[in-house]
């Protein structure tokens, strides 16, 4: 059903999705998703509002487990092992698959404690180790310069863009293999958007990044691969319409619906 244009093959996949279906209780939200998400590159999910981009993203680190009544079918493999297999600890999975949300969501704690939160969960207690991790993570998130002198400050006291980078630093501190970002730039100012995009470009070579965005230009700018989702009929499940290298998708979409969406004919 989906169209593929020079999409990553199984050998390049960090995450391999096969015949994936998703339900919110009664509501069948996603159907027949098949795709390989390329390792150490940036994949963008685009599509009109309500087409299940966030839903699908949250399937990757099983955040949907937290919503009552959800249910999946099909396989989703992270480095070859099915994350929905019986007995798999979603907590461990989420440590390996970090997530950034639309709304920057620092904990109501100090900057330091925000970043140290993950390592502490994993049992790091030595002050010097924690200091190290916090500094490294903030540096990787391009935030160190701005906050190094005020690590005790409340994370909520930062600007929106800084908060978002703090959230990224917080995730980097647990060394995830995959980073999921759900519209990470839609609630922050243009200058901060620039910084976050730069940061993503820096991280990509060693990290699989998946980003949901409403901003076509952003998808075109930063991603290596683009996946277009669509829910054609309200109430029916959405699915993957077209997937492939970003250049191809944006310059020569093969599916009419992709083209309509990209050229702004709806949505």
């Amino acid at each position, binding site marked *: 059903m989906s169209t593929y244009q020079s999409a990553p093959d199984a050998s390049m996949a960090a995450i391999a999705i096969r015949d994936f279906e998703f339900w919110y209780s009664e509501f069948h939200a996603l159907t027949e998703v098949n795709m390989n998400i390329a390792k150490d590159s940036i994949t963008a999910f685009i599509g009109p509002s309500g087409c299940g981009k966030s839903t699908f993203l949250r399937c990757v680190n099983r955040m949907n487990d*937290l919503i009552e009544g959800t249910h999946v079918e099909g396989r989703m493999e992270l480095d070859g092992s099915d994350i929905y297999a019986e007995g798999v600890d979603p907590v461990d999975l989420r*440590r390996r698959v970090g997530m950034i949300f639309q*709304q920057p969501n620092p*904990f109501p*704690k100090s900057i330091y404690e925000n970043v140290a*939160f993950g390592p502490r969960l994993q049992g790091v207690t030595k002050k010097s180790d924690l200091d190290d991790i916090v500094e490294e993570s903030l540096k990787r998130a391009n935030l160190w310069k701005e906050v190094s002198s005020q690590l005790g400050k409340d994370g909520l006291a930062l600007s929106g863009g800084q908060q978002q980078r703090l959230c990224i630093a*917080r995730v980097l501190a647990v060394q995830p293999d995959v980073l999921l970002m759900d519209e990470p730039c839609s609630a922050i100012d243009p200058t901060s958007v620039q910084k976050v995009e730069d940061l993503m470009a820096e991280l990509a070579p060693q990290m699989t990044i998946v980003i949901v965005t409403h901003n076509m230009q952003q998808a075109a700018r930063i991603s290596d691969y683009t996946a277009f989702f669509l829910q054609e009929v309200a109430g029916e499940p959405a699915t993957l319409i077209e997937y492939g290298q970003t250049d191809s998708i944006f310059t020569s979409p093969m599916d009419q619906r992709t083209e309509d969406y990209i050229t702004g004919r709806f949505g």
Partner: protein
Amino acid sequence: MASEMREPISSRERIKRALARGAVHRVSKETSNAVMLGVFRAAAYITVFVLVAILGYVLVNGIPNISLEFIFGWPEGVNAEGGIWPAIVSTVYVTALAMLICTPVAVLAAVYLAEYAKQGHLVEIIRYAADTLASVPSIVMGLFGYALFVETMGFGLSMLSAALALALLMLPIVMRTTEEAIRAVPRYIRWGAYGLGATKWQVVSKIVLPGAFGRIATGIVLAIGRAIGETAVVLYTMGQAINLPVTPLDSGRPMTVHLYLLANDGINMNAAYGTALLLVIIILTFNLFARYLSRKGK
């Protein structure tokens, strides 16, 4: 095109005509508006006036009777002259004990409802029970406390019996405010923690409860205010002996009961006014403190 246009035109005309026919019956909207707004204003003024009158009355009659000796002295003699120190201590003692008993249970129960429970019959039943508990008339709680704690469990007329009964009274209040407080913690923040690989308990204990602390404290303080003002429950669970309680099995006489007895005996009304004022001051202080906490929590 033309046929499309005609429809709305005729519609327009018909609406216009109907409106015009109606306009004949119109009553003066300005008058009814002014009158009714005046009625509402009057209701508010009456309410405020009455409530201020009560507070003012208690204040005016109470102030002359309050002194250090009144606060820290013991009741003396035939006419309960002197002070009400044992009553103050009994009130503080029993309320603190009730709070200690109630808070952990109520907070953990709220955690269950907000974080763990699946919506369903069970949760419905728990909520119904909590609501019912909140509305049990205090004299019934007194009867129950007397039958269970005083007699069956053998705690006698004591701080412990009264505190247990009061804790039951406070339980739904703290439970509800805590649950609301927990729910008010944005789900985004929770997700952030889950996303970092926190287990449910870690999320609850490290993120949710600290985040909700201000509002939980507000609920507890409000419940304390309620417990301090309670009379019927303690009347038959604590006894009324004038006594400085030491162990939880001691009897005592809280301020509300002292006020009731003074008012009934009708002999030393001065002491009654003084007690009433102190009681009101303590409760208003707690409630103001709760407001302060909730404002700070936001």
